[in-house]
């Protein structure tokens, strides 16, 4: 299980990608463009040292807070 700190850090990071929108851990659909998605991928790869291709990740998995949190739970 990932620590609450990890989740908070992730939400803080995602908030910088979707400025002007309140991002909470409630599964809100994020309005992330392609560039922001790449930044999320790089963030997850660098922070958790995982190879996302091996986990059958789809872009839509990264477009909701709940999807991101479940990924962090898997990798953490």
């Amino acid at each position, binding site marked *: 299980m990932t620590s609450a700190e990890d989740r908070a850090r992730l939400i803080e990071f995602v908030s910088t*990608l979707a400025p002007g929108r309140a991002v909470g851990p409630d599964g809100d659909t994020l309005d992330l463009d*392609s560039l922001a998605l790449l930044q999320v991928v790089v963030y997850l790869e660098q922070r958790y040292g995982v190879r996302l*291709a091996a986990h059958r990740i*789809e872009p*839509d998995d990264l477009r*909701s807070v709940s999807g991101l949190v479940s990924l962090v739970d898997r990798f953490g």
Partner: protein
Amino acid sequence: MRAGGERRWMEAARRPWGRLLLVLVCYAALRPGLGPMALVFAAAVALASLWPRRRRSVLSGLAIAVCVVNIGPKWPWGVTDPNANRLAMRALLVAGLWVGGLLAWTRLLASLPRWIERHSLTLLHLGAALFIGALWGTRAHSAMSGATAAALCSLVPELLWRSSYWMKWRARQAGPAGIWRNLFLTLPFLGSGGVPFGKGPAYIARYEARDGNELASAQLEGLRLLLLALAWRGVDALLGGLLWGSSSGWLPAWASFREPVLPTMEALLHTPDLFELWQRWAGLYSELIHAILTLAAYGHTIVGILCLMGIRIPRNTDAPLLSATILDFWNRYYFYFKELLMDFFFFPSFLRTPGMPVLWRTMLATVAAAFLGNVYYHLLMCSQKLCAGDASAFLSLASARLVYCALLAGGLCFSFAGSLGKPAGPRKAGFPARLIRMAAVSTFFGVLHVWNYGSEDISLWQRLEFWKSLLTWN
């Protein structure tokens, strides 16, 4: 104030008379574009409003009905062309076999060998290529007419990308598939061109209304979109009438000029030297606006219908002329096509190169999507020319689209390179600077559109000559 107004509309949309009004307006808005089929769509919206939990089953029934009407033979049999009806029966049979095969794969997936499961998407695309090859070969040996081969070939892009999203979804799903309630996502019943609006079942599930409030909100958005589509069609007709003197059912004859003010793109491409430099540029921008209006009206109608059914997916076209970067324009112009390239080419390429610097990974993924994926999509679309036995038409179209894809990929790489390292999201810029950027981005797409415009009648050389004429004073 605005929230209060929205709430009142939502309350009205939840009442029986509000729903009835919604269905009537839906019918009235769809009637000019869809003709009598508007009644079938309005009936589906009524059923989905009455039984929201059954909306997907209603959509599946609607999809089958629309496909049979659009693809199948025309009745009464004796009155219409029997050859056309025989061809329609074959097309219906091929579409039925394709979807039947997909559903069989869906059911049997767990019992299939592991390598088939792992490479299902590749096998699907290989099968599609073999099918096109078989059509081409059969026609070449005179065992099938060119028209039949082309008509059957045109089904491939319509079914292929829908099937691809379906396979992606199914491969990640542990439980039963729920085939009937998702069947509408395998059938080309909304629009044409092969791009699936709403992608696959997983995407649709994220945007489906879960209660009465969400349904009312989605339906109001759907109504807004249908009315907006009507408005854009009207504006486009007005533009065509005033600028090009073209008449349409959307504009009274007196409202269009007899003499065109600007040359059409067709005229510009065939005889650019007959026009002044300003006319060439004005014609180019007008054509871009016409393309955007057409796509916006088309996309708003499809997304609007899904919203009315309670599935509030994002808009397909969202004010692309306001974009200050090439990347943003691409995102706002044809959202679901961009998503298709993202899902099947960009993202897989980006994920498979974790060791490379981010800039190189991004460039590689951009080329994979905007060039290779885009070329593949367009080749599939052009392949019916090949099946019809018109190799020169195929080459003319394919070469123009190849240039289009290469230029687009170059533009997107440039835009990505400029954006990487900067914070994501909308950037603040002064009004004049933003206006200059918007004009530059629109110019890029206007100039690019020359290679994605029109039919095979316009040769590569004519497109290039027109490009040259944009920089030449008479």
